[in-house]
């Protein structure tokens, strides 16, 4: 969409806290997996229609500042509701154990996450490449005026896409909740990693983002295993290397 949304990390955080609330109230993780994306889609759509829509023509800086304002609002709301302490929820029943596969042991929840990630990634690539919405969206980003002249209802498409992105971020938050800690500030952490991933992969390329995520994920784990204090340094080096050789990302279009 060519919109930089710093509050995207907040959507992820809200997703995780939604999971926490739902699991605490109903003990049902699957319900959380359903509720959080719907909640965040509504929130994303509302924010897009009321606030962000006015800023598209002003360039990136106002968008960045406004969404930065929203990150402050959201993190404070979360802190006022849940306090500053770290929370955790157990993995859903049936996925708390371990699985033995080819001489190695995996937690079954990790495998479950891997499965969901693959399904969502496949759906995204198919949607981006093959569906009408994907085509419309690519056209809208490439040339707003021309797409509008061809009769495409861009405002509605953008609202839908924004809501969809927010829903995905919320879903990611729910899935991450049993695996990682839930705390106010998790939004900034995930946002930075997401930015690095997107920069490495190339803006406006779903496949690039997938590749970038794989590179960063592997880099981070390797770094954390061999020199834990400086795992972040390895990511830094990877990003520098990509930038030197391919300034617009691994799969990005050359500007």
């Amino acid at each position: 969409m060519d919109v930089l949304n710093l509050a995207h990390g907040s959507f992820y955080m809200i997703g995780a806290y939604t999971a926490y609330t739902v699991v605490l109230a109903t003990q049902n993780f699957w319900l959380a997996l359903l509720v959080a994306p719907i909640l965040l889609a509504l929130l994303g759509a509302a924010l897009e229609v009321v606030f962000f829509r006015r800023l598209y023509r002003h360039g990136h800086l106002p968008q960045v500042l406004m969404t930065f304002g929203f990150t402050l609002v959201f993190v404070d709301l979360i802190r006022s509701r849940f306090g500053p302490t770290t929370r955790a929820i157990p993995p859903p029943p049936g996925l708390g154990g371990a699985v033995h596969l080819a001489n190695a042991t995996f937690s079954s929840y990790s495998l479950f996450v891997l499965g969901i990630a693959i399904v969502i990634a496949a759906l995204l690539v198919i949607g981006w490449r093959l569906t009408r919405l994907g085509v419309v969206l690519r056209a809208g980003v490439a040339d707003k005026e021309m797409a509008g002249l061809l009769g495409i209802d861009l405002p509605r498409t953008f609202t839908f896409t924004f809501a969809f992105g927010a829903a995905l971020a919320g879903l990611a938050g729910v899935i991450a909740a049993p695996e990682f800690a839930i705390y106010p500030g998790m939004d900034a952490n995930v946002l930075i990693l997401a930015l690095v991933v997107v920069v490495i992969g190339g803006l406006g390329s779903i496949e690039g983002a997938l590749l970038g995520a794989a590179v960063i994920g592997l880099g981070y784990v390797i770094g954390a295993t061999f020199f834990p204090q400086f795992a972040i340094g390895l990511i830094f080096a990877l990003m520098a290397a990509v930038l030197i050789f391919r300034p617009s990302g691994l799969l990005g279009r050359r500007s």
Partner: protein
Amino acid sequence: MIPARFRGLYRPAFLVVLALVLASIPLWAPRFWIYIATQALIFAIFAMSLDLLVGYAGLPSFGHAAFYGVGAYACALLALGHIDGLVPLLLAGMLGAGAVALPIGALSLRTSGIYFLMLTLAFAQMLWGLAVNWTSLTRGTDGLIGIPRPTLPWLDSLKVSLYERGPFFFLCLVIAIAVFVLLETVARSPFGRTLEGIRENDRRMRALGFPTFRYRLAAFVLAAMVAGIAGSLAAMSNGFATPDLLYWTVSGLALIAVVVGGSRSLVGPALGAFVVLFAQLGLSTYVDRWELLLGALFIAFVLFLPRGLAGLVRRA
């Protein structure tokens, strides 16, 4: 009506009045407010350095806090290593920040626009992570504490110490004015004009024979060095340096200060820094959920005053 020939004097007259009002603060303000005004001055130096990037060079950096923090740590390490003297400590902050900015700038400037913004943000957060994790150098989240302020021989002979609020405030004011004059001179120099040309049309400037990448990098490093000065002053003022100084919200606040004040005016961002700091402080004194209100305030500003306070003046 004031005759048109006096119009050119508005800005200088405003600046002189502003400087006099600021200089009078220690005479009438309560002690606590002198401290706050000092913090605001330091933040103003930081915001002015960011304006050189955002306003004049058109480089929207979201990682400027990195250089503020590196400056503070460099100054802190030197001061804790028993090196005394204002000039070496400020130089440490300046050169430390500049040395870090050179590689970061060289990499980030290979991109532009939204990419540049994301990259500077990512680099700054990595340095923040480094400040948290490299405990042998930075003591992690505890930070470096007990940083002494420098002693100045000629002040000592007057029996004045920088540990008093008034003198330290004046020191910050003098440095802030010096930074303002420096940045204003840079902005009006051929170098500054070239930067504006590059901001408007990079390709044309290259066709005219300007090495635009080098100009941008020079602006990036210069802005970082000024931010390093602000960081050194912050370390002296607080007496400690923690990773918080490098956190992305600090970069965000500085950008807000630039935009609230109105970019490409230097005075605007400096005033914006005062607005942001006083809003933060005023809200946090009286309301529990001040971050929420601060965020809402910023959102309202972007919605209703996209060109900042200076934009109001220019329209009138």
